[in-house]
């Protein structure tokens, strides 16, 4: 990965049961990923309101990633199925508005997939870094 000065700010919403545990496992195994990723714990990926995602961009995030249990493995049985539909529609709408599709992602990471978690974050950070700063969903008032 090319090292650039620019450090993207990534907000990662992780469901408590799979992905947050996956992130913990990545930690246990000392699998590193960029510190640009900041994790917010939610009970289930379906707790993530599109408003949270937009707000993250407003406040200066350059990329937002949602991680949940694999479809079918949701702790709450169906939560991530709803996440999948909501985010499919939301992301498609953002794309329609001309906002870079690479800034958002949904990834299913189980509690056992520490390596996948780290790899996903490495990949996502690189992807967002390549785009540069978020300009299309920014709120100028929040810029320093």
């Amino acid at each position, binding site marked *: 990965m090319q090292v650039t000065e620019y450090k993207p700010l990534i907000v990662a919403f992780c469901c408590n049961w799979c992905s947050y545990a996956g992130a*913990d496992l990545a930690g246990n195994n000392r699998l590193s990923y960029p510190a640009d990723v900041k994790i917010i714990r939610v009970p289930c990926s379906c*707790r993530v309101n599109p408003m949270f995602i937009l707000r993250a961009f407003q406040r*200066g995030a350059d990329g937002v990633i949602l991680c949940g249990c694999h479809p079918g493995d949701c702790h709450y049985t169906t939560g991530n199925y709803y996440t999948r539909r909501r985010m499919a529609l939301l992301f498609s709408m953002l794309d329609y508005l001309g906002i870079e599709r690479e800034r958002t992602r949904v990834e299913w990471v189980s509690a056992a997939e520490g390596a996948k978690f780290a790899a996903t974050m490495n990949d996502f950070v690189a992807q967002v870094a390549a785009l540069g700063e978020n300009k299309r969903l920014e709120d100028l008032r929040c810029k320093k």
Partner: protein
Amino acid sequence: MQRIGVFVCHCGTNIAGTVDVKAVAAALKNEPGVVFSTDYQYMCSQAGQDMIKEAIAEHHLGGIVICSCSPRMHEATFRKTAAAAGLNPYMVEIANIREQCSWVHKDMAVGTEKAIILGKAAVAKVNLNTPLTPGQSPVTKRALVIGGGIAGIQTALDIAEAGFPVDIVETKPTIGGKMAQLDKTFPTLDCAACILTPKMVDAGQHENIRIFSYSEVTAVKGFVGNFDVTIKRKARYVKEDVCTGCGLCTEKCPQKKVPNEFNLGMDNRRAIYIPFAQAVPKVATIDPDYCMMLKSGKCGVCSKVCTAGAIDYKAKDEYIEEKYGAIVVATGFNPISMEKFDEYAYSQSKDVITSLEFERLTNAAGPTQGKLLRPSDGEHPHTIVFVQCVGSRCEACSEKGKEYCSKICCMYTAKHAMLTRDKYPDTDVYVFYIDVRTPGKNFDEFYRRAVEEYGVHYIKGMVGKVSPEGKKLHVQASDLLAGKQLHIDADLVVLAAAIEPDRSARPLATMLTASMDTNDFFTEAHPKLRPVESPTAGVFLSGACQGPKDIPETVSQAGAAAAKVIGLLCKDHLTGNPCVAHADEMMCNGCSTCERVCPYGAITYVEKEFRMPDRTTKLRRVASVNEAVCQGCGACTVACMSGAMDLRGFMNRQIQAEVDAICK
């Protein structure tokens, strides 16, 4: 705003090695609401916890933030600490600066900066926390066991022995399940009936056990501690409380050509029948598909011969409703259908049988009174071929069988082979196998005895084809070790059919909102730590409905499930998880959207009268969350357009505050 205390843990060098903990504590000191901030070697140690308690008291803290390891590790610990200091345990937030910071970042500056941000997010969240008190719900002290096999019987007996009433619902006319059909059990070779029937009798006579045989569960509502279950008692046309089980009717019934399912159709029974001599309850049942009286109104023999007057042709299905505190699923298994396995000629020859059919053939109470005779001609078979893994351990894409190992086949095949050789030393017994799996107490010894003492021919290899040729069955197989094709002319071929969950399990899972895996086995709440609980609170798993099991395993799981049930029923009240959804009634539109996404059916609607600002009253439809049922996933909060639905502990404003803190 709260008065917040921040406690930064070194975790030895685990955190302090990559994060400047003093800098973190200093940076967080300036955050809004923070009145105290410190760091310590091990926050989770007794000394660390005491430090937190003292700080809570000394600084009148209303909320605390612990910057430490994952909340999955010590959230419970620190909540207890807070509670011990008189602080509501839900006023605690944890910033995960170990697993998600110090352990994944190497640079001290980078790690410290991130730890500060994570700490700020936790402070921002705790500023909006509100004290939460878990709700309480009463517990109905009665358990329901669905399935009356050995798993169900054992669970029921254990619960009943602990003093709680328990009901068994069994679809068949008698309890006993698959074990009742078995002859001997491995590896001790004791007689299945000898050990099972006393338990059946115990269950039938126990003052705390009610048996609803010939019955099904048709609806389940409610939640842990408070299930409302509807049970359909199928019409058996015999009054259960009147029938003495004398069996006269079953001898006099003129309809003699009913395939006997207990013997897997290898012989016949009457239209009125008692499945087997030791049935519990020992009452007759009329099979409406065959009874002439029920079908055409002509006959009535049983009614005439019944001195007790137990026959009732006008009986109807009955539905009873009962409340339960806990439900145990023990729906068991069935061998898979052999229809798709044409290569073994199961449908072409009566002498190709499944292992369960073999059990019946060797059982003294079976169609041949325990004599091993060929189904086709009743002759004694001299060459017997056992085929293992029929339908088990199939390729992932195979449509025919199952991917999983059925687990019990190796042992019962060894048992069958050994018993055959023991009783009929003149028989040649071949066993074709992929692997022989014998992990269990005395299992491998058992298998080795079959090979070494009893001279069973174990051949590693698969049977390619079985073709009936005259009276013989031509078996084509490969011997992988010898590297050659084998041709055996067998008299009997026994297929170790894979086992699968009972068909009734899938609709039941839906009713219980319990989850299943792709093979329709029930999923456990945790594969290692909570193996007998389903993810749905109050629903427990016993026996093969959760995965293939032999009898000892089933019985131990049954006991474990019973222990869990007893633990639940011992409580007068259940304490819920307070992080549940909650609807702001003034904002709720009553649109039902949230209800549609709730996986637990926790949301209902009520028409409520509201005082409007103009002092009129208005009847409005608003959502109401059953906090005992809600598990707190939050699906409803996003479905709700007006934002009336929020999730305690993870409120919109809290998550937004975290986002803000991270992005600032």
